C-alpha cells in the first residue's frame, strides 16, 4: 500500500496453512522467525515481539498527541497508520491480529475461514452476540458485513483497495455500491464470498482489512448517498471503544473535531465475552496538531501520554539516551526506496539503474534518517516480517556487485555507466533529470543525498521538494508527467503477503494513469508473467518461494533503488504501559495499552 507518511503494514502470517487460534490467547510472540522479524536488531529496546499482552490495570484516560490529522476514519476508507489505531479500536473486521503476533485471529469471525478445494469460495462464520454501539444498538449480522464490503465500491466511499483484493469476487468489477452477486449471506451469521478466479488465499488474507468491519445498512445508507459519503461523521462502533457521539449518532463535533481532537470512550454495547481484547483504558483523548519536537518532549516528560506516529529524529535520540524505558522499536515498518523512470529517459537503461544503485551511499541515507536504530540498509524489496523475506536473501540480499557495498562503490558505478555507453563513466547525454522529492524531514535530507549522488554520476538535475500528497498525487503517481527520479517513495504491505509488497509496485499491469503506485513504470514481460502465475499459488511455501524469486529478479533488473528498511520508534509517557502493534509499525494499541 502506498504510504503517504508511514506505511500501514499489517505484518501477518507465515504459517503454512491458515491455522488460526480459536480465540486469541495471551501467548507471547510466536511465528515471527521465518519472516526475518527476529533477525532485525531493535537496539535492546522494547519491541512488539517481546512485550506482554496481559496484566494491565483497568481504568484511566490515555492522552495521545499527534501532529498529523487523520486521513479518514471511515472504516471503508481508512488506509493509513494514522487512522488505523482509532479504526481498530472501534471497528472489528472479520479477522485481526494480536499486537505481538503474525497470526490473524478471528475477530468478528468465530473461526478460521473455510476455503473450498477449488480455491473459489471463502466461507466465514460470524460470532453471535456482538452489538453495534448507540444509537444503532442491535446485533451485528452477516448482512452488515456484506454491506460493509459492498459500499467499498460505492463511488462516494471509494475504498482504495477494493478492486485489488475483492475484485475477484463475482460481480465486483461492475459493482458501484449496490449488492454484489458473489457475496452471499445464507443466514444471519454466515457470509460466503464466491470468487471468479481461484484467489481464495489472497482474499482470505485480506479479511483483516477494515473494509470488512460491519456497517449497518439501514443507518449508513443515507450518509453513503452524499457525495462524498459522510458516514465517518456518524459512524457506529463494534469494538471496545467508540468515537464519542451525541444522541443522534453524530460524531463530528464531539468525538472528532477535524484538526483538533478525537475522543474515544467505552462502547457500552461491547461485551468482553465476545472479544479477545482486554480494553483496560476508560477513555482515549487524542489531540491533533503541534510540532513533533515539542510533542516528543511532552510525551517523554509526561505520564499518561503517548505519541502515535513517528517521533521527530531528535526525540528518538533523546529517548534512546535518557528515557530508555519509554522507547519501543518495531521492525518491519515498511520500506523507502528511489523510483526511477524505467520507461523513458536515461534510467530506462538497466545499467544506468545499476550504476545509481552502486553509487548510492545507503548508510548515509539511513544516518540522515536517524541511524541504525530506526533504519536498516535495504538490499531487496521484500522486508522483514513479510513471508518470503528470508527466501529472498534475508538481510544481506542478493549477492551482486552493485548490492555489495552499502556505503556506495564508485568503481562499480563507473563500471555500469561505461556498460551503459558512457565511456567516461559519467553521463554525457543532454537530458536534465526532473527529480521530485518529499519536503518532510528526514525525507528531504535523503532526497538531497540522492540529488548529490546523481550529480556525481554526471547528471544535471531539476530538483524540487513538495508536500507528500502532491508528490504522489500530481507528479510521481502520474506517468504522463515523466518524472525521472522520485527519491522519496515509501511502501508498506496491506497485510503480510509478499504479493501486497511487489504486485502493485512492480507489475506492469498495475500501471494506471493516475494514482499509479508502480512509480518507476516497471514493465518487464517476464516479471509480469511470473507475478500473474504467483498470484494464484495457494500453498504457502510455494507462494513464498515464487514471490521471493520475483524479488530476486527485480533486484537483477534494478527496477528501483532500495535504501531503507524502516523500524519505527514509538514513545510513551512514564505512567503508560504501552503495547504496540507489530503489524502497524509498533504504534500503540488502545485495546491493550494501560496505565501503570
Amino acid at each position: 500500500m502506498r504510504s503517504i507518511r508511514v506505511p500501514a503494514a499489517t505484518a501477518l502470517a507465515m504459517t503454512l496453512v491458515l491455522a488460526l487460534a480459536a480465540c486469541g490467547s495471551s501467548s507471547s510472540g510466536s511465528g515471527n522467525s521465518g519472516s526475518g522479524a527476529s533477525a532485525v536488531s531493535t537496539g535492546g529496546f522494547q519491541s512488539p515481539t517481546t512485550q506482554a499482552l496481559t496484566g494491565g490495570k483497568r481504568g484511566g484516560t490515555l492522552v495521545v498527541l499527534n501532529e498529523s490529522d487523520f486521513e479518514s476514519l471511515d472504516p471503508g476508507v481508512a488506509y493509513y497508520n494514522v487512522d488505523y489505531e482509532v479504526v481498530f479500536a472501534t471497528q472489528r473486521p472479520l479477522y485481526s491480529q494480536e499486537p505481538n503476533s503474525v497470526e490473524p485471529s478471528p475477530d468478528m469471525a468465530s473461526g478460521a475461514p473455510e476455503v473450498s478445494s477449488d480455491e473459489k469460495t471463502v466461507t466465514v462464520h460470524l460470532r453471535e452476540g456482538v452489538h453495534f454501539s448507540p444509537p444503532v444498538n442491535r446485533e451485528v449480522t452477516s448482512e452488515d458485513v456484506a454491506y460493509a464490503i459492498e459500499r467499498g465500491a460505492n463511488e462516494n466511499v471509494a475504498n482504495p483497495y477494493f478492486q485489488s483484493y475483492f475484485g475477484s469476487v463475482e460481480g465486483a468489477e461492475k459493482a458501484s455500491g449496490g449488492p454484489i452477486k458473489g457475496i452471499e449471506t445464507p443466514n444471519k451469521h454466515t457470509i460466503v464470498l464466491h470468487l471468479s478466479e481461484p484467489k481464495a488465499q489472497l482474499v482470505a488474507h485480506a479479511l483483516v482489512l477494515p473494509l470488512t468491519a460491519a456497517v449497518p445498512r439501514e443507518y449508513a445508507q443515507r450518509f453513503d448517498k452524499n457525495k462524498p459519503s459522510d458516514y465517518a461523521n456518524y459512524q457506529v462502533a463494534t469494538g471496545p471503544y467508540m468515537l464519542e457521539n451525541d444522541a443522534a449518532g453524530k460524531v463530528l463535533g464531539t468525538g472528532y473535531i477535524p484538526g483538533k481532537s478525537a475522543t474515544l470512550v467505552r462502547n457500552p454495547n461491547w461485551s468482553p465475552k465476545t472479544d479477545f481484547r482486554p480494553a483496560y483504558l476508560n477513555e482515549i483523548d487524542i489531540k491533533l496538531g503541534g510540532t513533533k519536537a515539542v510533542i516528543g518532549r511532552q510525551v517523554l516528560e509526561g505520564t499518561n501520554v503517548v505519541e502515535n506516529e513517528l517521533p521527530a529524529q531528535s526525540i528518538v535520540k533523546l529517548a534512546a539516551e535518557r528515557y530508555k524505558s519509554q522507547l519501543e522499536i518495531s521492525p518491519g515498518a515498511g520500506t523507502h526506496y528511489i523510483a526511477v523512470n524505467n520507461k523513458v529517459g536515461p534510467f530506462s537503461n538497466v545499467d544506468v539503474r545499476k550504476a545509481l544503485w552502486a553509487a548510492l551511499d545507503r548508510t548515509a541515507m539511513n544516518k540522515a534518517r536517524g541511524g541504525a536504530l530506526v533504519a536498516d540498509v535495504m538490499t531487496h524489496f521484500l522486508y522483514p516480517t513479510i513471508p518470503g523475506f528470508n527466501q529472498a536473501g534475508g538481510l544481506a540480499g542478493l549477492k551482486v556487485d552493485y548490492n555489495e557495498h552499502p556505503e556506495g562503490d564508485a568503481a562499480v558505478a563507473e563500471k555500469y555507466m561505461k556498460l551503459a555507453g558512457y565511456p567516461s563513466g559519467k553521463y554525457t547525454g543532454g537530458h536534465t533529470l526532473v527529480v521530485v522529492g518529499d519536503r518532510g524531514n528526514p525525507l528531504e535530507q535523503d532526497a538531497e543525498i540522492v540529488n548529490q549522488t546523481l550529480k556525481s554520476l554526471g547528471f544535471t538535475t531539476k530538483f524540487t521538494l513538495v508536500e507528500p500528497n502532491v508528490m504522489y498525487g500530481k507528479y510521481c503517481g502520474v506517468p504522463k508527467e515523466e518524472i525521472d527520479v522520485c527519491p522519496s517513495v515509501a511502501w508498506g504491505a496491506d497485510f503480510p503477503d509478499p504479493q501486497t509488497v511487489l504486485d502493485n509496485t512492480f507489475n506492469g499491469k498495475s500501471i494506471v494513469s493516475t494514482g499509479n503506485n508502480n512509480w518507476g513504470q516497471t514493465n518487464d514481460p517476464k516479471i509480469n508473467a511470473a507475478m500473474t502465475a504467483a498470484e494464484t499459488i495457494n500453498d504457502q511455501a510455494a507462494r513464498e518461494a515464487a514471490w521471493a524469486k520475483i524479488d530476486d529478479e527485480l533486484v537483477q533488473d534494478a527496477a528501483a533503488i532500495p535504501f531503507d528498511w524502516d523500524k519505527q520508534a514509538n514513545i510513551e509517557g512514564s505512567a503508560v504501559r504501552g503495547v504496540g502493534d507489530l503489524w502497524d509499525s509498533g504504534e500503540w494499541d488502545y485495546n491493550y495499552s494501560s496505565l501503570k
Partner: protein
Amino acid sequence: MTAYIVRRVLWGIALLVIVCALTFVLFRVFPTANPAQLRAGRSPQPKVIHEIERVLGLNKSLSTQFFDYVKNVFLHFNLGYSYYSDESVRSLISERLPATISLTLGAGVLWIVGGLGVGILSALRRHSLLDRLAMGGALVLVSAPEFWLGLIALFLFAQDIGQWRIFPGAGSYVGITSDPWQWFTSMIMPWFVLASGSAAVFARLMRGSLIETMGEDYIRTARAKGLAERRVVRHGVRSAINPIVTLFGLEIGTLLGGTVLIETVFNIPGVGRLAYDSITTADFSVIQGTVLLAAMFIIVANIVVDIAYAYLDPRVRYS
C-alpha cells in the same frame, strides 16, 4: 462627504470582486495540483477521478464555475466546501478566525502602546541614552525576520524546549472561552514577536513626527504662553499622531492577511495557516475563501483610513 463614502465603498466592493476573479483565475490557471487527482490518489482508478471532478464541479467551464462561485459567495454567503475535510469553508474559517483575530488585535495593542510610548519618550528625550537604545533596538527589531524572532523566542523562553522555561511553547493555543489564562499566556510570545517589527516602525515614525511637530510655531507659542509642559506635549502628540493612525489601519488590514508565518512558527490554528495548508493541497474553495477574507480586511481597512483622512482633510474628497 456622503458622496465620497459611497464612492469609496462601491469601489471597495468592486475591488473585492476583482480580487475574487483574479484569485480564481490564478489558481485555476496555475493550479498547485488537481484536487480530484489528489483526493482520488488513494484509489488508482481514472473513472473515480472523473467522477470526483464531476462531483466537485471541476469539469464545468471556468466561467460557469466562476459565476456559480460568485453567486454563492455574494448572494448566499456560501463559500463552498473543502475538498478534503468536506467541511464548509465558512465553518472552517470561522473556527480559525478567533485565533487570528486574537493574534492580530493583541499585537495591535502592543504596537500602539509600545510604539507610541517608546516613540514619544524618545522624542522628548532626544539624543539621550534612552533614545539611542530605543531607536537602535527598534531598528534591530525591524530588520529581523519575524519568523526567526519567533524561533529565538521559543528557543529561549518556551516551557517545553526553552532555556528559561517561562511561556507556553508552540502549539499551546486554546480559545479564550475554554481557558482564558492559557489563551493569554500562550499568546504572549506571538504577540510580542508579531508586534515587534511594527511597534519599532511606529516608534521611529512617532519620534520623527513628534520632533517635527514640537518644533512648530504653535507649540512654541503655547509654551511661551505658560502652558504646562504636559499639556504642550499632548497638543503635539495629537497632531503628530495622524500618520500613525493611518498606518495602523493599513497595517491591521494587511496583517490579517499575512499572519501565516507566525502561525506556522507558534502553531496557532489560525486562518493564515489554513490558507497555507489549502494552497499546498490545492483545496480551491478554502484558498479562495481565505484569500477573499484577507483581501476584505485589507480593503475595509483602506476604506476606513481613506474616509478618516477625507474627514480630516477636505481636499481629499474631491480628488
